[in-house]
């Protein structure tokens, strides 16, 4: 299971990228690979996990290194171009648009592919019936769990091959976290790869095929999820828990 990436061909390859946030050197030669699988990046706060996702989607382009998406270097492309190449992004803290309704969120980012199994706003509403009930409501007036579903839904309708999930469980009730996990499983069934940044180890445990550990802007450890998460020593060493 953990080498499914190799089996299915590599989708995304991050090679030794160096990114800065203002003047501080956040990513210092970070590398990872994502195939047709769910990969979790774990690490303590401030290690650069969010910056990694921002670098991939182009919001914080790396100053050095390469990011290869399906054989193409996407460093230097603008965020919307990268998104249109098939990478969906669910930012930390959801970041919905307060002046858009639920429906407008989905219509805005919906990208037609013509495939029969494509994600349409209607299909998202099927997946999240509670959103359908609130389709006219402003995104800011949803509960935390609903917001997270909408954030995932709006990434989903771009019909991505890979979704970047930044701390989807943050601040959610256990029920909502369960919902997020179930949703991600659903995505995997639809052959959407997932790159997950998490602090909540059990979410990673439930979802990830492989894990990377980030320390100080660098991926210092890589293994199958089970191998890492079931080893308390490793967990203590890298995550302090």
């Amino acid at each position, binding site marked *: 299971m953990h080498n499914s990436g190799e089996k299915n061909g590599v989708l995304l390859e991050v090679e030794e990228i160096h990114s800065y946030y203002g003047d501080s050197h956040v990513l210092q030669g970070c590398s990872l690979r994502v195939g047709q699988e769910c990969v979790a990046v774990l690490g303590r706060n401030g290690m650069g996990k969010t910056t990694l996702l921002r670098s991939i989607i182009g919001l914080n382009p790396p100053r050095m290194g390469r990011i290869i998406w399906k054989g193409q270097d996407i460093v230097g492309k603008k965020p919307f171009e990268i998104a249109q190449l098939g990478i969906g992004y669910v930012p930390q803290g959801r970041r919905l648009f307060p002046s858009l309704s639920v429906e407008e969120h989905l219509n805005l980012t919906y990208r037609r592919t013509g495939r029969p199994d494509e994600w349409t706003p209607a299909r998202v509403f099927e997946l999240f019936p509670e959103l359908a009930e609130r389709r006219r409501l402003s995104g800011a007036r949803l509960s935390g769990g609903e917001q997270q579903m909408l954030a995932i839904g709006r990434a989903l309708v771009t019909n991505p091959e890979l979704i970047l999930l930044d701390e989807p469980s943050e601040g959610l009730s256990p029920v909502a976290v369960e919902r997020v996990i179930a949703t991600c499983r659903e995505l995997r069934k639809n052959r959407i790869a997932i790159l997950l940044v998490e602090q909540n180890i059990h979410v990673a445990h439930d979802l990830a095929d492989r894990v990377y550990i980030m320390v*100080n802007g660098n991926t210092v450890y890589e293994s199958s999820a089970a191998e890492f998460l079931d080893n308390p020593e490793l967990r203590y060493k890298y995550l302090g828990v």
Partner: protein
Amino acid sequence: MMTGPDQKLALSIQSVSKSFGGVQAVRSVSLDVPVGERRALIGPNGAGKTTLFNVVTGELPADGGRIELFGVDITHKSVQERAKMGLARTYQISQLFLHLTVEQNLFLAASANRNMEFHLLRPWRRYRAEQEWVFQVAEQVGLTDYLHAVVSELSHGLQRQLELGMAMAMRPRLLMLDEPAAGLSPTERTTLISLIRNLPREITLLLIEHNMEIVLDLADRITVMNRGTVLAEGTPAEIRANEEVQRVYLGSSYA
């Protein structure tokens, strides 16, 4: 290690809540920190720790509840008033004056509560007492060699030290540290932890930290937060033994 219950409280939070949009970040949290205690606030991301900090310092207004600082109700006091009462904090992301020197940064913090901001004509360098205090603080946080360096040219570790120094320079009675060691290299972290450990004991410390090592090393007592509420409170040993904490914080309940 534990402070006696008869001692006065540095900070008393009584059922404080705060929500953003549809998300309730802090739900009716109550928390008492006696004078002189070193308290750590831990919990998973999004547990509401930083929001609670912002509510306590006054940067965010509380939706409800009551906050007392050294026995005075500060719920409706401004950030400035709270600062003048001896409340100082550091930020998760350094909030420094990037184009000023370390000395200037420290001086600004040192003179903050001295009502000097409208002294118009005397050069700040001539305020001897403040100057000496700045040197003292610089020494405490290991920045003596960098007094004249411009902050934006300092390394991240030194900036975190300065962040701590800024709070120290305010001569706080209650010092709130928001992930002081975030993003530091192991050596830098060691330096910073020892700096914090060597802070005068009379300063009450409230600390947000993820790193258990640091927490166990520094804290007298630990409060665990999860999803905006207080989950548990106790000595480090108690917290370590608490299964619920284990479950939530380590996320093993779903295993």
